[in-house]
């Protein structure tokens, strides 16, 4: 399945329910509540101490509201791949994940959760969840790898149909970087140094990154009118031609504008990080990091020279340096 086909299929899931409403396997119960409170280190007596709970604003034991999703989790079946595949026929969420796995995005992490608590749950309550796929992003580059964000919305109800709470949930289904940070030789050591974001590669920009790998800073050129453009894209903005080739830039230019990133911190990047927009001498602009100058020393118009440098063992990028004096 190519990318346009994949993305069209993904869009077909948006607005669909993941399946019929599902009743949690266990009613809200004191045992699971106690296990949760142990794991979270939560000593709030309204969850586990009957007398204190009776005297509280709740008038009796309640479940921690943040347990909402736990009541409808699938448990050990989540670790059984064969069972997962059997269930992809009935569960659209599993089918969606399987589609992305087949397309080369096997890994998954949750990135966002928002829960609203209509009322606190009490022992004996039954929880029925009903989930709809709310949105699916385009392909995104993230710190973990390239992938797609999947948004779902779940309503939790009791058997009478009254709302107990709701949740919006976002996961990233992604292709992990080739060499896991896992290969850290000493497992007791601090977490491995995170690496920079990887670009999404496709038909339109692979040639540019191939150039970087070969030590060349390439600039796309319209074959009809000769206009240079960057970043790479299929069509000339001046004459709408889709015929193009490239020239190799010398990497020399002048700072047109810049920002210094302080916040938010992103794994793999050290702040403060100067990011410059440079007018290349060939006649287009390039965004890259600037090395060799403190943020306070950066000036608009300053002459700079790009060098292609290794960011880590896999990735190279152009980095601007102050030009040698006299240029």
């Amino acid at each position: 399945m190519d990318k346009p086909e994949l993305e069209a299929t993904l869009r077909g899931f948006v607005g669909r329910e993941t399946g019929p409403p599902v009743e949690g396997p266990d009613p809200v119960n004191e045992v699971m509540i106690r296990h949760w409170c142990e794991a979270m280190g939560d000593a709030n007596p309204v969850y586990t101490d009957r007398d204190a709970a009776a005297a509280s604003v709740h008038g009796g034991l309640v479940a921690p509201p943040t347990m909402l999703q736990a009541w409808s989790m699938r448990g050990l079946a989540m670790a059984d791949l064969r069972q997962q595949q059997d269930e992809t026929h009935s569960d659209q969420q599993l089918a969606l994940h399987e589609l992305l796995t087949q397309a080369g995005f096997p890994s998954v992490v949750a990135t966002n959760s928002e829960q609203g608590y209509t009322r606190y749950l009490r022992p004996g309550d039954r929880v029925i969840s009903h989930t709809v796929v709310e949105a699916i992003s385009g392909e995104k580059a993230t710190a973990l790898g390239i992938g797609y964000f999947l948004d779902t919305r779940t309503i939790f109800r009791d058997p009478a149909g009254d709302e107990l709470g709701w949740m919006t949930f976002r996961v990233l289904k992604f292709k992990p970087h080739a060499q896991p940070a896992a290969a850290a030789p000493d497992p007791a050591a601090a977490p491995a140094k995170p690496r920079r974001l990887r670009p999404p590669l496709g038909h339109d920009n692979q040639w540019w990154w191939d150039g970087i790998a070969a030590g060349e800073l390439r600039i796309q050129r319209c074959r009809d009118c000769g206009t240079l453009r960057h970043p790479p894209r299929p069509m000339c903005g001046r004459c709408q031609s889709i015929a193009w080739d490239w020239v190799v830039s010398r990497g020399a230019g002048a700072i047109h504008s810049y920002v210094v990133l302080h916040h938010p911190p992103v794994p793999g990047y050290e702040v403060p990080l100067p990011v410059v927009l440079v007018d290349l001498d060939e006649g287009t602009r390039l965004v890259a990091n600037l090395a060799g100058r403190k943020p306070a020393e950066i000036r608009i118009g300053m002459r700079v020279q790009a060098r292609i440098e290794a960011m880590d063992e896999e990735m190279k990028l152009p980095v601007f340096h102050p030009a040698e004096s006299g240029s």
Partner: protein
Amino acid sequence: MTSAARSAPLTTRRFEAVAVGDALPELALPITVTGIVAGALASRDFTPVHHDKAAAQAQGMADVFMNILTTNGLVGRYVTDWAGPDAVLRNVAIKLGAPNLPGDTMKLVGTVKSKDEAAHEVVVEIAGKNAWGNHVTGTVRLVLPAASGAGGAR
């Protein structure tokens, strides 16, 4: 993540006694394999990356990492530890960044961002930072009882 870190809230903060800008006390939670697995199983999340190191490594992580349900539970606990047992949570919204991996420590901090006088609601902004940066950022909306009694809290 450990019983040593437990704290028992005894009294509940009154809505009138809380001011915008108030800081919650910092809570430092050591992240351990045991704590990650305990949280994953207590939340019924058996996704292998939260208990099986080889599965986590196949996904590009150094080790098993904390699941979002545990993060959510810790955020709820952090706020009610401060607010007290008669506080009622209305909404918890979190965004995850750097994963919580064994050997790290997550420091939770929080600040009161706003107060809704009519609803007796308070919004607390929280962040949980580890060695890589923010593991979690988010907001918690909760109802606090009135100074005169429990009247405004329900």
